[in-house]
């Protein structure tokens, strides 16, 4: 086979559905939003149970970390075009502004570099405007069980 499209083995929309059916992603209510070459977007709708400051209704930052962990890890599979077991080595989140109470947050994860076992990622979390992110993320994933 030649001239295959960038991803053929991985369908991020179906993968996201499978990964958010139960478990932590399911409890958070994470959903597939969009994807492209080496990037994936997941959506996190606002809900009371995820609030970090009761008075303000602002989402806790923990759900934003989970959102960025999931969308960046999916961006790796999309870039590798394979569902490989991997672990998060580290993840850094910069909170550039507070989330807007009641708004759905979109996490956009991008894998910008692959080596044999490491995958380097970055991402943003935003609401309506990708040029006004509420958080930036950077991290590294390591493939496991594949030496």
């Amino acid at each position, binding site marked *: 086979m030649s001239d295959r499209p960038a991803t053929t083995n991985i369908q991020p929309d179906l993968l996201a559905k499978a990964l958010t059916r139960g478990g932590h992603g399911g409890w958070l209510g994470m959903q597939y939003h969009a994807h492209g070459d080496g990037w994936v977007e997941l959506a996190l709708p606002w809900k009371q149970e995820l609030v970090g400051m009761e008075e303000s209704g602002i989402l806790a930052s923990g759900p934003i970390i*989970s959102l960025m962990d999931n969308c960046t890890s999916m961006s790796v599979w999309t870039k590798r075009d394979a569902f490989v077991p991997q672990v998060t080595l580290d993840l850094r989140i910069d909170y550039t502004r507070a989330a807007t109470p009641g708004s759905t947050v979109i996490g956009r994860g991008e894998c910008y570099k692959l080596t044999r076992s490491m995958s380097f990622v970055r991402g943003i979390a935003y609401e309506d405007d990708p040029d006004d992110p509420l958080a930036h993320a950077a991290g590294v994933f390591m493939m496991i069980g594949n030496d």
Partner: protein
Amino acid sequence: MAEEQVNIARRLPPYARGLGIEVERLEGHAPVLAMDFSERVQGRPGYLHGGALSGLLEMAAIAALQCELEADGGLRRIKPVNVTIEFMRGGTEQRTFALGRVTRAGRRIANVQVEAWQDDRDKPIATAFLNIALRD
């Protein structure tokens, strides 16, 4: 449960209660927070989700800082600026603990280190470092 411990539990936000986070005990001023394994915190089958673990770390960091500020003359408004998490071991299907340590609380910024472990305290499963902005 000591009164101080009840106050710390009362301060935990809806998100922490949703994850099932509890105040296990106090060590000095800072609380050891604990979170049982459940479907809600599971990532890949049989393992703790890195995000749920990060949530526990962040709650322990904030709780440690609040206790330190309280002991030091009163609560202030706090706002995480950033967090860096390092994952050392996969968390398995058991109770997870976390304890924060305030390395410095200045006028505008606090630096907090926090560690999470499961059955063996000498084998942390993750650590995190937070910069937290302080406001009156």
